[in-house]
């Protein structure tokens, strides 16, 4: 017996490519710009969103029959804000170092439109198991793009990956730098993320023409 039924695995796999929250739905762009100058930040952000989105989706899904529809957006905001604050406090108490890296993202997670989007579009109409899988899938789809963008920006902009100097040392001119290679300073400023993102969208749509909308 497969671990997940076909329908359920579709919930996880679809957002990774053909229904990716960033490249297809174009949500969550602001955090994709803000924190992809280095790979480590992108990975941390992806993991935080994974946690908050899957847990939040389950919470909203459990409450879906009792939430008054008039104030559902406020309820969603309260759920995500409370989750994020609890995570932040627990980390501060038991994993202080990690919490300092994460504190930058706390605000970004609350305002991430992917989270509100999934609560509104999916969790309010589906059971907790499906909502959980949908949360995992969308967070992974978001994370993959973040990591790809972070990889290129850190590699081309700073010549490092996770802080390791993979291309040699630009100051003492070793490795690639000894033959005249220079870091591209443009890659570490936010507009570069849009360009990398644009290229990803272009590649993805030229591979799968069905994704191209009629003009």
């Amino acid at each position, binding site marked *: 017996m497969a671990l997940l039924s076909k329908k359920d695995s579709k919930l996880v796999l679809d957002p990774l490519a053909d229904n990716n929250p960033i490249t297809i739905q174009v949500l969550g762009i602001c955090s994709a710009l*803000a*924190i992809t*100058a*280095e790979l*480590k*930040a992108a990975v941390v952000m992806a993991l935080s969103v994974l946690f908050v989105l899957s847990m939040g989706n389950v919470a909203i899904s459990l409450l879906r*029959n*009792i*939430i*008054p*529809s*008039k*104030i559902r957006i*406020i*309820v969603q905001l*309260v759920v995500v804000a*409370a989750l994020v*604050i*609890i995570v932040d*406090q*627990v980390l*501060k*108490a*038991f994993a*202080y170092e990690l919490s300092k890296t994460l*504190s*930058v993202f706390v605000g970004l997670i609350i305002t991430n439109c992917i989270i509100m989007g999934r609560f509104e579009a999916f969790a309010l109409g589906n059971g907790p198991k499906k909502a959980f899988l949908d949360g995992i899938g969308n967070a992974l789809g978001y994370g993959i793009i973040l990591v790809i963008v972070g990889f290129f*920006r*850190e590699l081309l*902009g*700073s010549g490092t990956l996770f*802080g390791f100097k993979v291309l040699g040392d630009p*100051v003492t001119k070793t490795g690639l730098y000894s033959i005249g290679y220079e870091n591209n*300073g443009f890659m*570490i*400023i936010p507009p570069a993320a849009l360009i990398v993102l644009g290229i990803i969208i272009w590649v993805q749509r030229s591979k799968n023409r069905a994704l191209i909308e009629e003009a």
Partner: protein
Amino acid sequence: MALNTEKNSYTVIFAALMVVVVGSLLAFVASGLKPKIHENERFEKQQNILYAMGVNDNEGEGDVTFVPTSSVEADFSKYIVKQMVLDGSTAVEKENAYLIDVSKEIAKAKNGEKAELPLLIGEKDGKTFYIIPLYGRGLWDAIWGYISLDDHMVVQGVYFDHRGETPGLGANIKQRFFMDDFTGESIMSGNSFEGITVAKGNGDPLNTDKEDNQVDALAGATITGNGVTAMIKDCIKLYKPYLQTIRTK
């Protein structure tokens, strides 16, 4: 009986209950974890102060490694020999001066009000370190840190931190390749307390010139860099009356 979730009374009751439940949950979590969080913050301050005077577990070139939290309290009382607050051009001892909220005191001092500016004196290998807390503004939010000086007003080490600078850009002020450049720089230019400028295009990326009051700036982080410059300048100015009395040429 099915709930009528459309009724106004239901909406109001739901909202009120939600506020009470979430509010007490958060309050419960926050107060339960408070002692642990405060302890972590105290350890972090001690680690940062010790880092600025060169007491750390750095290995290799790139990493910032503090003394471990398990031993930081013992190290702190071993290396920090005096904790004081400034009183005009003199300083008086005060217990746990390092816990003073520097952001408030510096703001007071800048307004000309009476403030408690902490100053720590460390000793390592027979050398005396004067450690000054720093506090200023970066691009997005607060930046702070510690700078340690010897009696010639030469920087012995710095530690910077920030609340919300951009990862990969301004956030790099807490990386070794930026902080290490400050060590050995003099904050004096002749007889004036110049501070140290984070300078773009000073043509000295390896920072070999230690007398120019300049370190090389971070690409893409001009405003954070200017914030560091201003922070050092402002804080040195507040401590100048005292520093003048201990300075030897």
